[in-house]
């Protein structure tokens, strides 16, 4: 088990190094940071000074090590577009995205898993057919269009919910939250639903497929033969074993939900990391893009590690196998 952990950790470090290298190459070789900071009309002498200040006159390897060192200390340089330290802006924007992603994920889990289980256990019933068609519709619906329709119905036509922004936000000092005010909660409803829609469909289809696979196995047939009640067979035997891959899926979806938040945030002008990233891409703000790339990579690698650990906890067979490996 320890060797398994060490191997995964080693892989994670390598991935992070590669991503940081890519981010550095982007940061260093795309566009001209001097022009971006000083403007096109700057003189050569001015550029010389800033070049020395930024360390751009040193060998590339040294620059990479400096960049890496900075990243490790949470220093991502200055945003070309905003003229402020990248990390400060990122920390400011983080709460909005986290609140959006977590509420979206919660909705998706609460709706998606039961719907998937129902559709798997009641194959052929009208409701499961409707659920299945709805899920196909759900994965065919681009999330930005989903958001647009919600805005059209609930903000423009009915006037119930605000169409953009976070509403009233409470500042807790280290965190800003929209969850503590009615306005903030109202503003969260449509973005969270938009984000959840695709995930509900996705989770439902995966849970259903996984459950169908499990229901077909021998030990389920055997449990039935033993005369156990349907409930015991379905929920104590089948669902439990379905949940193992589902945990992986949800873990991995947490990453993709943050990626999809980019789009949702753009539709609702939600002031989070995703909107920041899109604005940075549209204006070729390379230092911001590099920082976002590293941040997202760290997030994904972290999630993958946690999912691997959860696997060990949930599935005792894996523990047994690694013990055998060691012997």
């Amino acid at each position: 088990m320890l060797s398994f952990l060490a191997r995964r950790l080693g892989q994670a470090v390598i991935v992070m190094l590669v991503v940081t290298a890519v981010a550095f190459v982007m940061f260093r070789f795309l566009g001209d940071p001097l022009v971006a900071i000083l403007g096109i009309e700057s003189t050569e002498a001015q550029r010389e000074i800033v070049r020395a200040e930024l360390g751009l006159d040193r060998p590339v390897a040294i620059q990479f090590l400096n960049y890496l060192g900075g990243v490790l200390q949470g220093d991502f340089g200055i945003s070309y577009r905003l003229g402020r330290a990248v990390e400060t802006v990122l920390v400011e924007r983080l709460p909005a995205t986290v609140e959006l992603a977590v509420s979206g994920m919660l909705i998706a889990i609460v709706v998606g898993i039961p719907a998937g289980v129902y559709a798997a256990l009641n194959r052929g019933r009208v409701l499961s057919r409707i659920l299945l068609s709805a899920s196909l519709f759900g994965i065919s619906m681009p999330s930005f269009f989903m958001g647009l329709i919600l805005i059209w119905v609930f903000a423009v036509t009915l006037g119930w919910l605000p169409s953009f922004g976070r509403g009233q936000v409470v500042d807790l000092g280290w965190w800003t939250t929209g969850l503590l005010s009615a306005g903030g909660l109202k503003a969260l409803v449509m973005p969270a639903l938009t984000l959840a829609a695709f995930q509900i469909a996705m989770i439902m289809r995966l849970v259903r497929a996984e459950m169908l696979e499990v229901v077909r196995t021998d030990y389920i047939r055997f449990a039935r033969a033993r005369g156990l009640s349907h409930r015991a067979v379905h929920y104590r035997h089948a669902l439990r074993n379905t949940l193992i891959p589902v945990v992986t899926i949800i873990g991995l979806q947490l990453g993709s939900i943050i990626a999809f938040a980019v789009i949702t945030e753009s539709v609702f002008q939600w002031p989070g990391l995703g909107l920041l990233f899109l604005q940075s891409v549209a204006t070729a703000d390379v230092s911001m893009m590099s920082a976002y790339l590293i941040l997202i990579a760290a997030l994904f690698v972290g999630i993958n590690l946690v999912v691997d650990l959860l696997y060990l906890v949930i599935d005792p067979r894996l523990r047994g196998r690694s013990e055998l490996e060691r012997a």
Partner: protein
Amino acid sequence: MTVGEIPVDDRTVRRPGWRDRLARSDVLHDFMRDPAAIVAASILLLFAVASLAPQIVAPYDAFDPNQFRLTDAFLAPVWLEGGDPRFLLGTDDQGRDMISAIIFGARVSLFVGLAGVLLAVLIGVAAGLVAGFVGGWVDAVTMRVADIQLTFPAILIAVMVDGVSRAAFGQADHNQVAVAVLVLAIGLSGWVQYARPVRGATLVERNREYVAAATMMGIAKWAIMLKHILPNVMTSVLVIGTIHLAVAVILEATLSFVGLGVPPTEPSLGTLIRIGNGYLFSGEWWIAIVPGCVLVILVLSINLLGDFLRDALNPRLK
């Protein structure tokens, strides 16, 4: 089994190519009994015809500024108050007929989607074949890259590709290469899903006797890969490709919607929705909603057909 008139030993019979297998499988038979698949295929056929000959199908040329007048702007669809029988689905902010704009837009969307998928197939199949056949460090490196990329969602990679090209080309020149960048973004963000199954299948096929026989006959490695192994993985590539096309069309629409895709001079469906988004609040909802519905119908049809192909071509599910 026979080839022509001569009965031959089973082991020496050429394995049927994917085309023969497609014809011999029950796909056609299944297709005729699946109403959803028939409807989906018919809709796609309609899209294909409209895309191949938009000048004939569309009432106006959506890319020709001489054919629309600002005085016709913001006309509602005919069934609403203020509709004009000349424009069945209304007009947009520049007086462009919505039907024509949608037909030309869907053409751009489909072209970008198809080209992107094709690029992904080329990269993915090549990488999978080489990795599986050559093995060793080539295999290890390719699959590690694939692993790393798989942890990032396609949309992020596509946005990243767009951002890099923007920084590299400069803002002004970027519009000229926008379509090519989109195709590249879709291709680079989707190749892994082909590379993995192709590599897996190649690993299996590589050890078959017919490959050993081909090698002994002195056939070059690339020829074995292309002529002997590739046909055996084409069915799964076809299935993945269909579902990927739906994802690619959504990806293009999404990028265009957030302003990173096709420029408004030759709008795709996503660009049209982006344009309409600005008028949602002033009551001209059709400019965004109508192209959006067309986009959903297009993607839904592709998904339905993809689901059908997956079930029909996968004997395990029968």
